[in-house]
């Protein structure tokens, strides 16, 4: 017997919004960290180095620091790129918590999270870019601002 009741069932939209809420909270938490601690001193996960090395191995074009610094949404969301990212993503299923959660990612590390400088990515993409940015000190300006 189905106990589903249309009158009392959760609104799907409300549940979906929770992902957005969680993504914003994650971004806020990360940004508050970056504004207090220089990114180059941060360690986001116990396997930052492994994530970075695997990232460069799969996407050699991102050896170029300028491409880490800023990119275009299309670079990540073209069909070819999506296929590559999907494979990369699955590599970290076991090791990275929430590896495939929707996460906000800045398209330009010289900007704060902003309406036109933020895209919706997955957590492992966030780590790939932010670990690389922190490694090259591209986020250090946030903590030095005050």
């Amino acid at each position, binding site marked *: 017997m189905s*106990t589903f009741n249309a009158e009392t069932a959760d*609104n799907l939209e409300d549940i979906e919004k929770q992902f957005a809420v969680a993504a914003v909270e*994650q971004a806020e*938490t990360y940004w508050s960290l970056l504004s*207090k*601690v220089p990114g180059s001193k941060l360690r986001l996960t116990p396997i930052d180095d492994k994530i970075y090395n695997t990232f460069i191995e799969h996407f050699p074009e991102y050896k170029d620091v300028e491409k880490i610094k800023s990119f275009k949404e299309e670079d990540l969301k073209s069909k070819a790129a999506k296929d590559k990212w999907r494979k990369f993503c699955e590599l970290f299923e076991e090791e990275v918590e929430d590896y495939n959660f929707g996460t906000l990612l800045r398209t330009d590390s010289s900007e704060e999270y902003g309406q036109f400088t933020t895209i919706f990515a997955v957590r492992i993409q966030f780590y790939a870019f932010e670990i690389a940015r922190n490694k090259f000190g591209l986020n250090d300006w946030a903590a030095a601002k005050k």
Partner: protein
Amino acid sequence: MSNVTVVNKNEKKAREMISKLNLKRVPGIARVTFRKKDNQIVAIENPEVYRSQGGNYVVFGEPKVDDFTQKLAAAQAQAEASGILPTTDAKDPKNIQLDMEAAAAADKKDASDAPAEVADDADAGDLSEEDIKLIMEQANVPRGKAIAALTEHKGDLVNAIMSLSK
């Protein structure tokens, strides 16, 4: 009360008597309930309610022992057991979020059997000392909590801080 409902003749008589008492019908009453000392509730659905000029009320209708609260509790227990309803009734986004977190936390507990609380002098194991200090500072929590959160989140700094700043 039982006289009123069970025996129709008596009811007729009572109605006749009452009609002589100059009672006024009170319209629009959907339900009258009586709560007894032992918290049992007797309810009359769609009653006929009359009011005397002195402010006394006369109620006609079929009284039923109302087990509404029991029914509700039983239904809820069933729903909870089948995992469809969370333990709270409120369905605002915050509660949904809490439910999801609770579920996620339960999952993780099962998987890793991580301790919920760690004493303040807990062994940090292979956790980075800097991370622990950073979490204590950022989330404003004692060392034990920082270690517990970091352990629970597999050393994920941002997630650990997030879980503590709710």
